[in-house]
């Protein structure tokens, strides 16, 4: 039995709303399988499993906002449990007593529920077997976890006792999912007039679609603001620029692409990323994370590609283990990732975990970009426009395609000389692209 927790998709994320589940108790999942969708300030993402096993319980109802690290899915070891599909799964329409829950698993009835910020623990399954809430009941009885008592406010407990109401069937909407006076009142009303199809008058929100594009952009702005503010507050940046003649690289690339169908054509950007990744191998103090006062270098290069979204905002999806990619693989990954980012089809495993970032504003014509490091990373490499510029070649003036490569790095971890060596190394590698 193990719990999958809400992953962090970056330093700027501290909570997410569960939009929907696409697995149910009893389903076997492999690492990488889709579990459901979550919505952060940056949009909706597919949540893929980081472990294999059998879903024992979904611990968080759709529409609920939970903080990073909250257990959201309980997995059992992958021993098949044939009868695992819970008979009292939440969809069961005859679930007793709480009329508002059963047919709307994505809508716990209180509009405030998704907001409840103080609910670090997953709302617990009530003690009694039937859980008519939106939560899945624990699937497999044998190794059942210690019974988890729901929070009940003192007032709610007193009123329930006075009316002889069994609280096992009541969904809490208060702080930390506590059952409140209002929840008890609803349950009593439901019990008293036995017309199950009469939900309370409260409008039922549809949390999955509660975020309009405008609020997502607002949320995105807040998330970006939080990350860059933290970066500029905590990270002493230093900045370097280096101009590189791309004459040889672009000529090589033109020859390379001429022989290939359009689907295999390599972008100059991929060449730049490739040179950066290779150069990083020699400067470990630029690749890794600085957390809790200490820097941890990474042997693998997980490159965050800073990607602007149409309509505003930034996401930095990660090409994992970029040092193992050939140029063609890197190019394909870059195209795929950027296109899926803009199409809103990223998976959670593609966010977070970056060890360095690359930002490229060259297509928009700027000469150089001085990046803001994405914490807890310690460096960001920027590419400006590849533009024809006057360039001295063998004592003569020539016109060459030149790019300005910039580095913003964390001075706590590295010094300018290492950054300079790194940029120079990228420049050298771009003179001999055929080695790429």
């Amino acid at each position: 039995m193990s719990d999958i927790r809400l992953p962090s998709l970056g330093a700027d994320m501290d909570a997410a709303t569960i939009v929907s589940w696409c697995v149910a108790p009893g389903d076997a999942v492999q690492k990488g399988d889709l579990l459901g969708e979550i919505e952060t300030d940056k949009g909706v993402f597919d949540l893929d499993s980081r472990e294999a096993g059998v879903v024992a319980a979904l611990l968080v109802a759709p529409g609920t906002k939970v903080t990073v690290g909250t257990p959201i899915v309980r997995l059992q070891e992958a021993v098949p449990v044939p009868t695992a599909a819970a008979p009292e799964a939440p969809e069961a329409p005859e679930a007793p007593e709480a009329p508002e829950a059963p047919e709307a698993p994505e809508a716990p009835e209180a509009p405030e529920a998704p907001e409840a910020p103080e609910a670090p623990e997953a709302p617990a399954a009530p003690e009694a077997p039937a859980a008519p809430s939106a939560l899945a009941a624990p699937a497999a009885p044998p190794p059942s976890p210690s019974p988890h008592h729901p929070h009940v406010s003192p007032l709610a407990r007193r009123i329930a006792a006075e009316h002889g109401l069994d609280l096992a069937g009541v969904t809490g909407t208060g702080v930390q999912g506590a059952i409140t006076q209002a929840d008890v009142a609803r349950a009593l009303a439901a019990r008293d007039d036995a017309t199950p199809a009469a939900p309370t008058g409260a409008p039922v929100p549809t949390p999955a679609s509660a975020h309009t594009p405008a609020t997502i952009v607002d949320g995105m702005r807040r998330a970006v603001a939080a990350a860059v503010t933290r970066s500029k507050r905590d990270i002493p940046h230093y900045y370097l620029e280096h101009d590189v003649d791309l004459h040889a690289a672009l000529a090589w690339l033109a020859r390379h692409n001429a022989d290939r169908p359009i689907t295999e054509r390599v972008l100059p950007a991929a060449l730049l990323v490739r040179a950066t990744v290779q150069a990083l191998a020699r400067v470990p103090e630029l690749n890794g994370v600085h957390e809790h006062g200490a820097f941890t270098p990474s042997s693998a290069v997980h490159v965050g590609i800073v990607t602007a979204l149409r309509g505003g905002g930034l996401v930095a999806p990660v090409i994992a283990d970029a040092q193992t990619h050939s140029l063609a693989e890197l190019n394909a990954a870059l195209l795929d990732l950027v296109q899926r980012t803009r199409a809103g089809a990223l998976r959670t495993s593609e966010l977070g975990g970056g060890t360095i970032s690359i930002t490229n504003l060259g297509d928009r014509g700027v000469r150089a970009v001085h990046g803001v490091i994405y914490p807890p990373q310690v460096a960001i490499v920027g590419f400006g426009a590849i533009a024809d510029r006057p360039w001295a070649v063998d004592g003569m003036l020539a016109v060459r395609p030149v790019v300005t490569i910039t580095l913003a790095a964390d001075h706590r971890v590295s010094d300018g000389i290492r950054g300079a060596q790194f940029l120079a190394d990228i420049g050298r590698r771009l003179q001999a692209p055929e080695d790429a």
Partner: protein
Amino acid sequence: MTQDEMRALVLAELQRIAPEVDGAALDGARPLREQVDLDSVDYLGFLVALHKATGVDIPESDYEAVATLDGCVAYLLAH
């Protein structure tokens, strides 16, 4: 395929990448990347999409010819 059909196809692929594009507001004779915010990834994605829809492989040396909407439609029809 008629010129109008091809134009509609090109616009549809463009809008798949840049949903904000208003086909009626595009100047067919001006380079697309001056009118639509397309970076190199978007642009290559656009050309790949055209390739998949029409079977026409546009070599890099012909990028100049397909830079405008009109040029693009004419090029695809010609090939």
